[in-house]
């Protein structure tokens, strides 16, 4: 516990601040938005929560806003995806909140270093998208291959180390963001339409392609390519057999030896540099990396491909050692996270918020139309950091939420043959 002020020791300044927040809330409320502003618990002021995650959602702006709204100190650490798994497993006391992906969760949950959340304490649980409950985007949609978030979202009790097949009152992680990933391209340097995953290994781009070196994600991109080429038929891309892994890696090793790849990347900024410098013209990429390249004034497209998308989701989980006031603060923080402001920020980076309705309240109609509904922008689209990203009239690559998320073919995954896959992946990297 780090110096919480007593609940009733309100300074004049706090009162003024809170007063203006209420006034603002009343103004917003008059436009028929319900439930705002929430008065956040006051006894958690100055509690420090240590959170780590990948660079994509560990943004200082979130820590600043959390300080303003909740008074908590959020200490953020940005790590690469593999390092996030290491952190949970090897340094369980070094964090309070883990901002990790669902496939990472599948790997680390059995370690017992995280504790599930009591759903009855989550204010916005009913606003969370179906993908993170029963797995269905719409009542009629089919569930894609791989580690779909809902398969690892529920557990049986506060001390359980396994996953529950059906919905329970114990949530392993509160979902925050998800997205449909595809290949990023530099249309100015390619100069022709790209519409299939096979293009990643097209000899036309010899020495100008890249794939990410995070095995659980990279193998899925590789599988999308091999399947599109018709070279490998998979029973389930999200849970490959040894033979399927061998075939996939053989095709990629051959391409690597032929000089297809310029580099492999591991962190988001590496992919930005490769693309922005023109070293690479086609590669695995993440949405905010595209945003970043575009705000540098370079054309970069998150190319929708006919075979569909590879998807992922991330959320916030609690460390096992959290208790007492800090645990309360963590719940409060997570409720705040889902209340919309953060969702709006993440949506403006090209992600989807796991609680879209609340995020909508923090975006303009034009922004919502552009990012979520796939409509043409009426005004310039500005990224969360104030840079102009798209001129008026632009349409999001891939279109609306349903067109993109409805076309997901697999989720990032951890397979039964994970250990074998990792070994083969390492051999590919070293080949």
């Amino acid at each position, binding site marked *: 516990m780090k110096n919480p002020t007593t609940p009733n020791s309100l300074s004049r300044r706090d009162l003024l601040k809170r007063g203006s927040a209420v006034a603002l809330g009343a103004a917003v409320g008059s436009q028929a938005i319900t439930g705002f502003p929430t008065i956040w618990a006051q006894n958690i002021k100055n509690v420090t929560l240590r959170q780590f995650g990948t660079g994509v959602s560990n943004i200082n702006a979130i820590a600043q806003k959390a300080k303003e709204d909740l008074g908590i100190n959020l200490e953020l650490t940005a790590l*690469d995806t*593999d*390092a996030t*798994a*290491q952190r949970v*497993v*090897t340094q369980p006391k070094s964090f309070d909140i883990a901002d990790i992906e669902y496939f990472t969760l599948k*790997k*680390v949950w*059995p*370690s017992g270093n995280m504790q599930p959340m009591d759903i009855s304490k989550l204010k916005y649980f009913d606003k969370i998208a179906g993908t993170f409950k029963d797995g269905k985007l719409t009542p009629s949609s089919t569930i894609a291959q791989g580690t779909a978030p809902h398969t690892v979202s529920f557990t049986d009790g506060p001390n359980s180390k396994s996953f529950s097949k059906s919905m329970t009152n114990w949530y392993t992680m509160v979902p925050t963001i998800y997205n449909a990933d595809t290949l990023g391209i530099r249309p100015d340097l390619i100069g022709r339409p790209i519409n299939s995953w096979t293009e990643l290994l097209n000899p036309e781009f010899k*020495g100008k392609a890249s794939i990410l*070196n995070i*095995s659980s994600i990279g193998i899925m991109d590789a599988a999308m390519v091999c399947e599109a080429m018709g070279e490998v038929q998979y029973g389930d891309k999200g849970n490959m057999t040894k033979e399927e892994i061998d075939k996939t890696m053989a095709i990629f090793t051959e391409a*690597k030896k032929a000089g297809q*790849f*310029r*580099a*492999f*990347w*591991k962190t988001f900024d*590496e992919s930005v*540099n490769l693309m922005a*410098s*023109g*070293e690479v013209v086609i590669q695995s990429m993440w949405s905010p990396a595209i945003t970043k390249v575009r705000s540098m004034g370079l054309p970069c497209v998150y190319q929708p491909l006919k075979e569909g998308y590879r998807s992922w989701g991330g959320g916030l989980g609690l460390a096992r050692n959290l208790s007492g006031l800090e645990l309360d603060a963590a719940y409060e923080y997570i409720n705040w996270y889902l209340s919309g402001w953060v969702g709006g920020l993440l949506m403006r980076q090209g992600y989807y918020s796991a609680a879209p309705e609340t995020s909508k309240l923090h975006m303009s109609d034009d922004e919502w139309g552009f990012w979520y509904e796939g409509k043409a922008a009426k005004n310039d689209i500005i990224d969360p950091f104030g840079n102009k990203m798209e001129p008026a009239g632009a349409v999001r690559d891939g279109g609306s939420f349903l067109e993109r998320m409805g076309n997901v073919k697999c989720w990032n995954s*951890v397979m039964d043959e*994970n*250990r074998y896959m*990792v*070994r083969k992946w*390492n*051999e590919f*990297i*070293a*080949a």
Partner: protein
Amino acid sequence: MNRQSPLSTLLQISPISLILGFFLVLPIGTILIVSFWDYNDFSFFPDFVWTNYSDALGSNVTYKTYLNTFWYAGLTWLCTFLVGFTVAYFLAFHIHTTRWQIVLFLICTIPFWTSNIIRMISWIPFLGRNGVFNTMLQSIGLIDEPLEFLLFSDFSIVLAFVHLYALFMVVPIFNSMMRIDRSLIEAAIDGGANGWQMLTNVVIPLCKPGIAIGSIFVVTLVMGDYITVRLMGGGQRASVGVMMWNEISLLLYPAAAAHAVVLLAVVLIMVSLMMRVVDLKKEL
């Protein structure tokens, strides 16, 4: 001479034993123990299995990776030796005042005021496809297409190594050269030796300890490196260090520990071979 009491001897050797015990023996012992443990996707646990070693030594990739690492170490050694010897020779024999020797020597160390990651990364925009060097060559009409081998290649890796580690050669060789009695060189010249004979018969033999120390530095640093190979190789070149780092990032600690033990053995053998060539104890 008085015989010292056992207690005072014990007190005298205890600081170094404690330091070596905590920072050398203990960590290496831990690695050795962990290398026999077993692991699954998310944790590793005490056991006594040989699978980590059989996986490591039974895989072709390991041998290829070692060959690759030797190749980097060999090339880097050769380049740093040529650069280091030349610079040290110039400083020791062509600069006649101590003041200037110190000034120029300090200039050599300037790059070391920055982090080695920064020194490495600064090569990337310089050597890239649309980088400064390629743009310059193209604008003066020397080449039509950018030279791709400059970046994310063995070339860029060795270049960065030489840049990072040349000083480790310069310093010990310079030190050895400064200890050479100048009258030996005069005697060689008086005896009719030409420049080349003077170099090969007098200077090089007397610099051997410096060369050996520099070589040990450079070779061990390159053998254990992972970040240079990863950054300058664009993540798709392998070295033993990169292989271990991949395993660590995938939580395969026992496998990485086994590789670390093998690497330690290999490097110890290499160093002992170097000590064979130069008897450091005698020369110092």
